[in-house]
């Protein structure tokens, strides 16, 4: 179990190797990598172009929130390994934002727990996205879809 919040990029291959080395009880490793997507680009009409994102977070609270979420996943599913790495700071389209990796003896548990972690960290970890556009900075609003995705795991 590990949680990291950092400005630097992460090496997905190295992270996954470290996670699975030394254990032979992982049958399935489910992984999610979130990337900055080039948004709202219309051919020749760049009104809504996003040049970059800046991720602000709440140092100290972020780590606690991610550890709580990770502990909850380990309580709900039989997991052998979990990892959450989340970046902050300025990120351009194509850059990695977040890595979530879950190893379990069984693939169903790995997939479910990975989706759970991604859904919950979007709504329960203190990050805020500021979009840089040609018209100026714009704070990203919360998505109803993300709230719904997170709510399906409430019990």
């Amino acid at each position: 179990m590990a949680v990291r919040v950092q400005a630097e990029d992460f090496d997905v291959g190295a992270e996954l190797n470290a996670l699975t080395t030394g254990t032979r009880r992982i049958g399935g490793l489910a992984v999610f990598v979130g990337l900055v997507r080039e948004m709202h680009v219309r051919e020749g009409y760049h009104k809504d172009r996003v040049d970059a994102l800046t991720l602000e977070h709440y140092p100290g609270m972020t780590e606690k929130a991610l550890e709580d979420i990770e502990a909850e996943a380990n309580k709900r599913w039989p997991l052998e390994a979990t990892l959450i790495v989340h970046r902050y700071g300025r990120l351009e389209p194509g850059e990695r934002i977040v890595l979530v990796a879950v190893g379990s003896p069984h693939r169903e548990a790995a997939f479910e727990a990975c989706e759970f972690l991604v859904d919950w960290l979007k709504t329960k970890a203190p990050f805020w996205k500021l979009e840089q556009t040609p018209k100026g900075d714009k704070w990203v609003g919360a998505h109803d879809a993300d709230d719904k995705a997170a709510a399906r795991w409430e019990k």
Partner: protein
Amino acid sequence: MKVRYFAWMKRTVGVADEEVSPPAEVRTVGDLVNWLRDRSAGHAEALAESAAFGAAVDKRTATFDVSIAGASEVAFFPPFTGG
């Protein structure tokens, strides 16, 4: 007690954090919100709609009925948009 603001609330209030000493009758997060609104026009604007933001007491998410007694840090922020 330190009060911190994040994302657009920080820009609207005008400061990232501030030291405050609320009177004894300010007991909960909700009481603190009411009390802070009077500090400036920026505070009043940022804290106007209680449904538009959340809070944390000592770095744990807290609802507005949570006590701030003994807390060293209270934070206010808009809904999270990470991931």
